[in-house]
């Protein structure tokens, strides 16, 4: 009772100091909420999040299946991948991908080990802030998703696989029809968390000028010095996105717990 009263009082006081604070330019904040540049950045944030999650999940599933395979080579390759990309900071990875042209000036498709190239581009043209951001976020996400998917697959009772095998189902069919759908129950909640955290992680892309929400906000406040106002604008959008994502997460969790 007392604790609740104190908490309520603190919240009212906080709201009061924020609302009447003359340093928070509410008119500026409202004015920029639907500004074209902000909405453009918002769109890039959503696109980066969605793309890197979708591709990251695909990478993660692939790496997880490799890690659980019988082949030591596949296991080793997947292990190396997760070890490396979980062990280095995302910020470093983003800057690295953005500057990949320093190591590989030409990127193309051809025969490896010095064979002929069929298609070739200068890295500086191929690697825009957006593609570098996408590369960095996707590959990093894949490494984390691999662990999540692996835990999900391992949570499925081995008897399920045997029951499917005794029906004559193939490895792939068992994975797709029996194991993965059940693993989903364990995979979905942390993946939802990854998605929500990815919405915010995209802001790191501002170090390579990624044109997402934070970058455009920064560009605007470097012009008009309304630093706090634009950070409030960006935060408002981040909050809105994460709230919507949380609702989606609840829905998916319910859907994939069918039969339990």
């Amino acid at each position: 009772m007392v604790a609740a009263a104190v908490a309520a009082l603190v919240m009212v006081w906080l709201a009061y100091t924020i609302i009447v604070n003359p340093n928070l330019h509410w008119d500026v904040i409202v004015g920029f909420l639907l500004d074209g540049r902000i909405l453009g950045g918002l769109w890039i944030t959503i696109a980066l999040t969605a793309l890197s999650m979708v591709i990251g999940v695909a990478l993660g599933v692939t790496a997880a299946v490799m890690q659980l395979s019988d082949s030591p080579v596949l296991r080793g390759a997947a292990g190396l991948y997760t070890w490396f990309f979980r062990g280095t900071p995302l910020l470093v990875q983003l800057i690295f991908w953005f500057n990949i042209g320093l190591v590989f000036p030409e990127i193309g498709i051809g025969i490896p080990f010095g064979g002929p190239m069929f298609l070739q581009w200068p890295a500086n043209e191929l690697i825009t802030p957006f593609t570098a951001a996408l590369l960095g976020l996707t590959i990093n996400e894949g490494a984390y998703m691999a662990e999540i998917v692996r835990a999900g697959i391992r949570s499925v009772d081995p008897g399920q696989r045997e029951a499917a095998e005794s029906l004559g189902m193939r490895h792939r069919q068992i994975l797709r029809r029996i194991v993965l759908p059940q693993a989903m129950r364990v995979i979905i909640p942390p993946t939802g968390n990854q998605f929500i955290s990815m919405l915010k992680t995209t802001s790191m892309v501002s170090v390579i000028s990624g044109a997402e929400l934070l970058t455009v906000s920064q560009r605007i406040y470097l012009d008009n010095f309304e630093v706090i106002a634009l950070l409030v604008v960006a935060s408002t959008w981040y909050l809105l996105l994460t709230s919507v994502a949380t609702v989606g997460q609840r829905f998916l969790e319910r859907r994939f717990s069918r039969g339990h």
Partner: protein
Amino acid sequence: MATSMVKIESVRKRFGRLEVLRGVSLDVAPGGVVCVVGPSGSGKSTLLRCVNRLETIDSGRVWVDGELIGFSEKAGKLHHLRPEELCGQRQEIGMVFQRFHLFPHMTALENVMEGPRTVKGVARQESRRQALALLDRVGLADRAGHYPSQLSGGQQQRVAIARSLAMNPKVMLFDEPTSALDPELVQEVLQVMRDLAASGMTMIVVTHEMGFAREAGDHLVFIDDGVIVEEGPPREVLSNPRHDRTRAFLGQVL
């Protein structure tokens, strides 16, 4: 060989240093119902699992309907079958597990449809019709839309039997199908198995239900420590065991 539906010949299987099957041979005629009994850890489950190649045997041979399981024989040498060939052989061998292992994310109907749909590519309508008929046969037509978690143990096991039957197997293997059930649910599952036996299905049944072995079985095998100690017509073995180990074991379970 052509007269046996299942022929097991001198099968050996070891896990590491532990030899679990030490030369087991068994013949099951078409339509025959063989019951396997024995103490815990004697190798009963392993024997069944060697028949549908969930375990790879170390030596010996297994044939189902004249077809060598798990290997092809060329010029006297055995070669492991490729995974897709194994899948083909497993389709012919139904297996029912102690703990059911129904697919929890599918309804009873979907569980029964899964094999035909995914493995044989049977059309949805057709497999649905078959699955409903099978659920009816095990007395569960009215539970088609239920998920396994909404069914009792006995009902789940009957769905599991229907799921295996949907593949139209030549043999059915049962690994203690009633051991995980509450006592009052045992009979409904045994009844389905009796009906199945009466319909002419070839069955190998690992069980502690001596009543079932006596009435539905036409051959009883007592296995201990990886070898068949005694076998014969169920009534004879059960009422007149010749070996001390058989006598000791039956004394405990009867």
